[in-house]
C-alpha cells in the first residue's frame, strides 16, 4: 500500500493515535498534607477543636471524567460532611479528623490510583475512600506494607478476605444473588438470566453472583462483557436481544445501563433489568431512556436510598444540607464512614491511635453503629468471612417523586441463594 500524500499519511497516523486514545482515559493531580504517618499532635487545618490532635485520612476517588464521577463527587462530599460532624461533636479520642487535605482524583484508572497513593502514602493514617476494585487492588500491597487501612468505594466480595479493607454492606456478588432471587419471586422470571457488565472485578463479581443464583433457581445463564462508553454498547444490546432473557443483571456505570435499557426496550425487549447499586443516577430520568427505565429497571443496593427514614439517613441529610441535589452517592459515602469511625474510636479507647492500632482495631469490631442504615452486626469483623459477610440487599424501583428517583420495593432481605452460599473464597478472584 502506498500513501500518496504527507497529509494522508499524517491523517492515518493520527487516526491510529485516536484509536489508542479511545482506550485510554487518564490524567489528574493533587497534593498531600505532610503529616508523619497521618497522625499529628497539632490541630487539623480546620481547627474545629484547636486543642485536639489531627488524624489525616486520604481519599482517592473518581472526581472528574471517570464513569463513576456522578457518584464519586457526592460520595466524597458526604465523607467530608461525616467527618466534619464527628469533629463538631468533639472528635475521636482527642483527635479531629482531616479528610480534606489529601483528596486525589484517579479518574477510575488503576495506574493513576497507584500514583496518587504514592503521593499521599506518608501523609495519611488511613484511606477514607479508595474507589474501584482494580484501583484498590493496585495499591493493596503498598497499603499492607504501610499498615494503612482503607474504606473501599466498591462492594467487591474479595474485600471480605482482606484485613486492610473495611467494607460495608452486601458485596456485588450477594447483591446480584438477591436481585435474581427477588426477580424470580416478583417479576415472573422463569427461564434465562443474562449478566451484562464491565470486564474484570466489578462485572465479574456480580456475574458470579448471578450465575450462582441462576443455578439455584434452575435458570439458564449467560455472561456478556461490555466496555465503558455509551457509544460502545451496540454489541451488548445486540447480544441481549439475541438471547431474549427474562432477566438482565447489569453491572456497569449509569450511562451504559441507560443505553442498554433504552436501546433494548426501543427494539421491543420487555424483560426485567436489575442493576447493581452503581448503575443508577437520577439524572437518567431526564433522558430518552426514562420511560424504559420506569417500566423495566430495578436497582439492587446495599442499603436504603437517600430518602429512607432512619436516624443515619436523617443525620446525613442534615449534614450535607438542603442546597445539594439528592444523590445516593451521599448515602454511600456517609454509610461507608461508620466502620472507620468505629475502628478509630476502638483504637483510641485501647490507648494508641496509630496506623497499626487502627488496623488492629478494625479487625476486631463486634458491631458498628450505622444509626439504623444497616443493623449493627453488619459491621462485625471478628470471625471468618463466611460468618461475618453481610448478605442482605434492598431492591429499589424507579420513582420520580423520590429524592433520588428510586424508592425501596423490598427492604434489607437475604435471598435464599445468598443465605445458602458457601462463601469460603471470593466470588471473583481479583488476582
Amino acid at each position, binding site marked *: *500500500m502506498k*500513501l*500518496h500524500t*504527507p*497529509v*494522508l499519511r*499524517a*491523517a*492515518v497516523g*493520527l*487516526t491510529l493515535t*485516536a*484509536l489508542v*486514545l*479511545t482506550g485510554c*482515559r487518564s490524567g489528574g493531580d493533587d497534593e498531600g498534607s505532610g503529616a508523619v504517618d497521618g497522625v499529628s499532635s497539632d490541630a487539623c487545618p480546620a481547627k474545629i477543636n484547636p486543642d485536639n490532635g489531627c488524624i489525616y485520612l486520604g481519599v482517592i476517588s473518581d472526581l*472528574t*471524567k471517570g*464513569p463513576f464521577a*456522578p457518584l*464519586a*463527587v457526592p460520595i466524597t462530599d458526604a465523607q467530608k460532611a461525616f467527618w466534619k460532624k464527628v469533629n463538631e461533636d468533639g472528635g475521636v479520642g482527642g483527635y479531629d479528623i482531616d479528610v480534606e487535605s489529601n483528596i486525589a482524583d484517579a479518574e477510575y484508572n488503576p495506574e493513576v490510583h497507584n500514583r496518587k497513593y504514592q503521593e499521599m502514602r506518608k501523609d495519611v493514617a488511613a484511606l477514607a475512600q479508595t474507589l474501584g476494585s482494580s484501583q484498590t487492588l493496585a495499591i493493596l500491597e503498598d497499603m499492607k506494607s504501610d499498615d494503612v487501612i482503607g474504606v473501599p468505594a466498591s462492594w467487591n466480595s474479595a474485600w471480605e478476605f482482606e484485613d486492610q479493607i473495611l467494607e460495608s454492606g452486601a458485596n456485588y456478588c450477594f447483591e446480584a444473588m438477591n436481585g435474581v432471587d427477588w426477580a424470580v419471586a416478583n417479576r415472573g422470571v422463569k427461564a434465562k438470566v443474562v449478566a451484562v457488565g464491565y*470486564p474484570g472485578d466489578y462485572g465479574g463479581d456480580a456475574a458470579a453472583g448471578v450465575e450462582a443464583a441462576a443455578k439455584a433457581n434452575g435458570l439458564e445463564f449467560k455472561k*456478556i*462483557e*461490555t*466496555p*465503558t*462508553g*455509551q*457509544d*460502545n454498547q*451496540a*454489541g451488548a*444490546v*445486540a*447480544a441481549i*436481544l*439475541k438471547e431474549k432473557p427474562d432477566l438482565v443483571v447489569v453491572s456497569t456505570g*449509569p*450511562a*451504559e445501563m*441507560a*443505553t442498554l*435499557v*433504552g*436501546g433494548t426496550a*426501543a*427494539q*421491543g425487549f420487555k424483560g426485567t433489568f436489575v442493576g447493581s447499586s452503581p448503575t443508577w*443516577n437520577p*439524572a*437518567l430520568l*431526564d*433522558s*430518552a*431512556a426514562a*420511560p*424504559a427505565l420506569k417500566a423495566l429497571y430495578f436497582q439492587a443496593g446495599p442499603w436504603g436510598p437517600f430518602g429512607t427514614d432512619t436516624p443515619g439517613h436523617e443525620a446525613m441529610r442534615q449534614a450535607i444540607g438542603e442546597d445539594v*441535589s439528592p444523590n445516593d452517592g451521599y448515602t454511600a459515602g456517609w454509610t461507608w464512614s461508620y466502620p472507620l469511625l468505629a475502628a478509630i474510636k476502638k483504637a483510641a479507647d485501647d490507648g494508641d491511635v496509630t496506623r497499626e492500632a487502627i488496623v488492629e482495631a478494625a479487625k476486631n469490631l463486634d458491631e458498628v453503629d450505622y444509626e439504623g442504615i444497616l443493623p449493627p452486626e453488619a459491621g462485625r469483623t471478628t470471625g471468618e468471612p463466611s460468618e461475618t459477610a453481610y448478605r442482605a440487599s434492598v431492591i429499589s424501583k424507579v420513582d420520580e417523586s423520590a429524592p433520588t428517583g428510586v424508592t425501596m420495593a423490598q427492604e434489607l432481605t437475604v435471598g435464599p441463594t445468598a443465605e445458602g452460599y458457601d462463601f469460603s473464597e471470593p466470588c471473583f478472584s481479583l488476582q
Partner: protein
Amino acid sequence: MTDFVQALVNGLGQGSVYALLALGYVMIYKATKVISFAQPSLMIIGGLFAYHFTRVWELPFWIGLVLAALCGAVLGMVVERLAMRPMVGKPVFTLAIITIGVDIVLRIIANRYIGVQSKIVEYPGGSERLSVGGVSISHQTLGLMVVTALVVVGLLTFFRKSRTGLAMRATALDQETALAQGIKVGTMFALAWAIAGGLAAIAGTFVATQAAGIEQTTWIIALKALPAIIIGGLESINGAVIGGLAVGVVEALTAVYQPDVAPWLGANFALVAPYALMFAVLLVRPYGLFGQKEVERV
C-alpha cells in the same frame, strides 16, 4: 432478515452522527488542507449549547437545535480567526497539531460546564417509535436521519448553485487563482470552519438526546468520524457521508453477527470494526473511496 434490517437502521442512525462530523472534517480539509482535530470539542460544545437553550432557557428542541448550530458556526469562525488564520502558510502538520491544542482548551471549558452530571437534551417524543414490519426506529433517530439528509442536500446545493459555494470550491481547487479572481480566501476559510462548527453542533445536539447525554468522555464519539473520512476520501462530501454511514452500519452489523460468525475475533470486536474497514479500503483505494488520486510530476 428482520435482525439484519434492524441492525442496518440502527447503524444508519448512529452513522448519521458520524456523517455530520465527517462532513465537518472534510469542509475544513477541502478549504485549508488541514485535518481539524478540534471537531470533538466543537461537537461537545454544540451539544451543550443545545442543552442550555432547551433545558435552562426552556426553548423548544428545534429552535434550540438551530441556535446551537448557529452558535457552533460562530465558534468555528472564532477558532479559525484566532488560532488558524495567523498560521496560514505554515506546514499543514503544524496546523493539525494546533487543532489538537484548540480541542483540549475547548474541552476543558466544556468540562467545567458539564461537571459530573451528564447533560441530557430532551427530544420531543424521543421515546416514541415507528414500527414497520417488525423493524422499529425511534422518532429521535428518524429526526437525526432526516436532519442529516437535509443538511447534505443543502450543502450540495450550496456548493453547486450559490456564488459563495462556487467561491469555496474555487478556493479549494487553487487558492492563488481564487485570490487572483477576487475571492477573499480568508473569508472562505472562516466559512469552512463555520460550516464545520455548525455541523458538529448538530451532531452534538443529537448525541445529547441519547440515553446518557453528554458526559466528559463523550467527545470520544467524534473520533469515529476519522476512519469515516479516510474511507470516504478526505476531499469528498459524498465520501464523508457514505464513509460515516458505513462506519455506523459496519459497527451495528458487526455487533449483531460477529459473535456468531467469527467468535474467534473476541468480544466487542465491533469497536474496532470501523478501523478494520478503513485498512481494508486503504489497501484497495489508498486515497479513499471518493478521494482524489494525486498525480505528481517527477
